[in-house]
């Protein structure tokens, strides 16, 4: 009997601490584990007993990479509980803020974390020696996203300007117009990015995923929509927990999510793109087609192209919102407190981010549940590794390890976030 293992104790170029383990016996994969060994963080418990108005600020601290996503899911859930709806320019500003985060987060992953895999470098530092113009473009493109988040969020790190009902302060038309100039440059840079990554070589690998993303009647999804799949699921955000469940596995400090009665599902850029291609504006669709994507993409290694298409979309959408912006009369909709339960689901850069809160008549949080995208994708990551190794069983050890790591990085996993919500259960003696 011949046994072979692919083992990475510490995955590089992913957010947080995790490893991977693949065991091959007599030419077949017998075990695959994405190991997440960061200690769990108990944000859900921390939220209990706090005032409902604190949720955007508290949850923004969960992730240094996507604080806006946490804020957005939190305020939408609270507004649901309070029975208010934020519309018009305030809603548009929320989309604009989300554009900023997608640009920042995706660009960081494309250029600094993922591109080195395709160009054969151990990291962006080595890559920059031969591709300095591309790396500089990545840094500047990311900066355009930072500027949106700084202006609307009130500051770059842990934005503080978002509140239940809207914002504390809204920008002037002039402030937004100043952003537009850089965003026009960013749109061109994003298009160059799409073309750049489209030229990479991709392993021949296709997966018939169960894809899950938000879908809105007219928009590419950020903040609003039904939760849909490519196999007929179409539910309101409120029903999320009727369909999706989480389970504990011993080798991961993050809960694994799955759709009841079915196996792994995929959330994130690939799922959004496949389920919402028709919601992209024509120039973005054209860029995707020119990059060889057509209307569907089932190769997870090509997620780098999909991310770059989404950055292009975020630049286009930001420019549209800015050109149509009129300063609102009020920075927020008043939302009188009442007891209730609220549900919010938005599209974080890495996929669906679900929040649910129960508050009492004073607005004190009684109960909170948060499901981040990386914990939802853990099963899919493992399934990809199993398939990939099975199909490429003859690769030499070093190439196999490299491509397994790359297969994990296809997901841009945020391991730190994935562990934040593990509940302390009674299986410890």
């Amino acid at each position, binding site marked *: 009997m011949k046994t072979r293992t692919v083992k990475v104790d510490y995955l*590089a*170029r*992913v*957010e*947080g*601490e995790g490893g991977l383990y693949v065991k091959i016996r007599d030419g077949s994969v017998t075990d695959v584990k994405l190991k997440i060994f960061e*200690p769990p*963080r*108990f*944000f859900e418990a*921390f939220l209990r007993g706090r005032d409902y108005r604190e949720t955007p600020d508290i949850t923004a*601290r969960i992730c*240094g*990479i996507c604080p806006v996503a946490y804020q957005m899911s939190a305020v939408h859930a609270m507004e649901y509980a309070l029975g208010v709806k934020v519309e018009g320019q305030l809603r548009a500003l929320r989309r604009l803020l989300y554009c900023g985060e997608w640009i920042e987060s995706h660009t*960081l992953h494309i250029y*600094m*974390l993922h591109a080195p895999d395709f160009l054969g470098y151990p*990291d*962006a*530092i*080595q890559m*920059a*020696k031969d591709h*300095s113009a591309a*790396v*500089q473009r*990545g*840094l500047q493109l*990311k*900066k355009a996203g*930072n500027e949106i988040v700084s202006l609307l969020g009130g500051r*770059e*790190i*842990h934005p503080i300007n978002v509140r239940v009902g809207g914002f504390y302060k809204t920008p002037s038309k002039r402030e937004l117009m100043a952003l537009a100039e850089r965003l026009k440059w960013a749109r061109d840079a994003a298009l160059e990015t799409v073309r750049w990554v489209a030229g990479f070589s991709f392993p021949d690998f296709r997966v018939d995923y169960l894809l899950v993303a938000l879908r809105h009647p007219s928009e590419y999804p950020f903040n609003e929509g039904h939760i849909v799949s490519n196999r007929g699921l179409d539910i309101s955000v409120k029903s999320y927990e009727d369909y999706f469940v989480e389970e504990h596995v011993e080798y991961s400090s993050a809960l694994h999510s799955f759709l009841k009665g079915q196996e792994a599902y995929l959330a994130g850029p690939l799922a959004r793109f496949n389920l919402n291609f028709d919601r992209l504006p024509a120039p973005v669709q054209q860029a995707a087609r020119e990059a060889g994507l057509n209307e569907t993409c089932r190769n997870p290694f090509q997620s780098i192209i999909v991310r770059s298409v989404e950055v292009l979309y975020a630049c286009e959408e930001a420019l549209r919102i800015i050109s149509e912006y009129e300063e609102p009369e009020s920075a927020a909709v008043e939302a009188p407190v009442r007891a209730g339960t609220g549900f919010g689901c938005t599209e974080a850069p890495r996929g669906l981010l679900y929040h649910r809160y129960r508050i009492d008549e004073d607005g004190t949080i009684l109960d909170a549940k948060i499901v981040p995208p990386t914990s939802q994708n853990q099963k899919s990551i493992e399934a990809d590794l199993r398939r990939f190794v099975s199909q490429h069983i003859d690769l030499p050890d070093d190439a196999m390890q490299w491509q397994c790591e790359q297969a994990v990085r296809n997901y841009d996993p945020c391991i*730190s976030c994935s562990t*934040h919500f593990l509940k302390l259960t009674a299986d410890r003696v």
Partner: protein
Amino acid sequence: MPSSAENTAILVIGIGNEYASDDAAGLLVARRLKQAGRADFAIREESGEGAALIEAWKSAARVIVIDAVRSGGDPGGLHRLDASGAPLPAESFRGSTHAFGLYEAVELARSLGDLPQRMIVFGVEGQNFAAGRSVSPAVEHAIDSVARAVLEEIKKLGNEQVEKCMSSH
């Protein structure tokens, strides 16, 4: 474009996440230094995300960075690292929540030829990096002495500049 004033000033960057216990050390030192109210150096707070760091120090020639480290030393212990000529020890900076953090920012800037001429990193040994706002007593206790060490460094860097100016005349 950066002005010449920016180019000659010393920039102090405190890095951290104040909701990750001892990871806040760099921010606490930066705030302590702000209290000194000195005009001969600028102070910034950063989360430690690498691309933002490169942007922050882009127009500065002399930079001092303070960040929490995890290298197995005594909590509150201070490391002084000169990154101007040699790479930082990557392992020590894994306490950061960023895949692309301070170490990567310094080395990427070096690859691009954009590293400030002087780059001194003060690492404050942390003990607890869990979510929360409580800083370990040993780290809390070290903040004042780290701030003093940074002020000493500023003095040294200031003298270097003077020496350079004099030698060029």
